């Protein structure tokens, strides 16, 4: 299974990953702000994620780490 890890402190809420995700499972968490004052990104449905890493590649701030394979 895919695992996304967000370096939330670096997220600037630009939505580029949200728009780029082919599965449309990313969105900004409007219930919270990070230390910079932005709504950080979150994944609403990890089971649907294919670890394509498009979100990570379009993120200017290297917020997202993408892993695939069974976690121990």
């Amino acid at each position, binding site marked *: 299974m895919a695992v996304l890890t967000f370096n939330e402190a670096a997220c600037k809420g630009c*939505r580029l990953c949200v728009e*780029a995700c082919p599965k449309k499972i990313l969105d900004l968490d409007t219930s919270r702000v990070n230390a910079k004052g932005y709504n950080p990104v979150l994944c609403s449905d990890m089971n649907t994620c294919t670890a394509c890493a498009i979100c*990570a590649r379009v993120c*200017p701030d290297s917020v997202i780490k993408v*892993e695939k394979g069974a976690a121990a």
Partner: protein
Amino acid sequence: MAAKVIYEKSRGLKDNPLTYCPGCSHGTIHKLVAESLVELDVLERTIAVAPVGCSVLAYNYFNCDGIQAAHGRAPAVATGIKRVCPDKIVFAYQGDGDLASIGTAEIIHAAHRGENFTVIFVNNAIYGMTGGQMAPTTLINQKTTTSPYGRFEETTGKPLLVSEMLATIPGAAYIERVSVHDHAHILKAKRAIKKAFEYQVEGKGFCMVEVLAACPIGWNVLPVDSMKFVRDQMMPYYPLGVYKDRANIGGKGGAL
């Protein structure tokens, strides 16, 4: 079974958070440069030359030696470094105000001499750091803080086509224009940037990759819309593609 890392922040970048605005393309381009340096295994012998502009602090982001150049002079500074340290990898990272306006002499003559370093030219059609003034690359009718009614060709000319211009210089080995407005183009931009460093490793001479980039805050649009501006407004005027590729000349030679 341990999880396999598909993508993570490049070790070619320091841990420092980027100070760029939300959605700014500089971060994306930084990543491509950093990944290329790591993949080519040259990071530890690389010297980055930062410009004046939004990326003035680039030396805080690239995980290699860094030096900050006066406005427009990065190609001259890079010349000084590379001539003394020919076995090191040197790149100048410049914006369009820096390279296409105040630094035209330095970039043209670095190409003219065929200096064996790499230039990453970030074209976002505006002066970002100083607050969104008109650049030589600003599009016709584009509103900026110094063209509040839009850029008029009659008094300010047409946007400067830097890649086309530099491709006419015999000393230039590789000139390509790319964009980073979406995932597919980011992948293509990565290939171009990596190639520009490969050519330097092989001693082929002057390489420049012009990257069409978004400045959402300077353009007064949302980041997502800024990417559409690059695609719909910039790319028609600034066609993507390879403008010069002397793959078989200089250094060790050989086509790539």
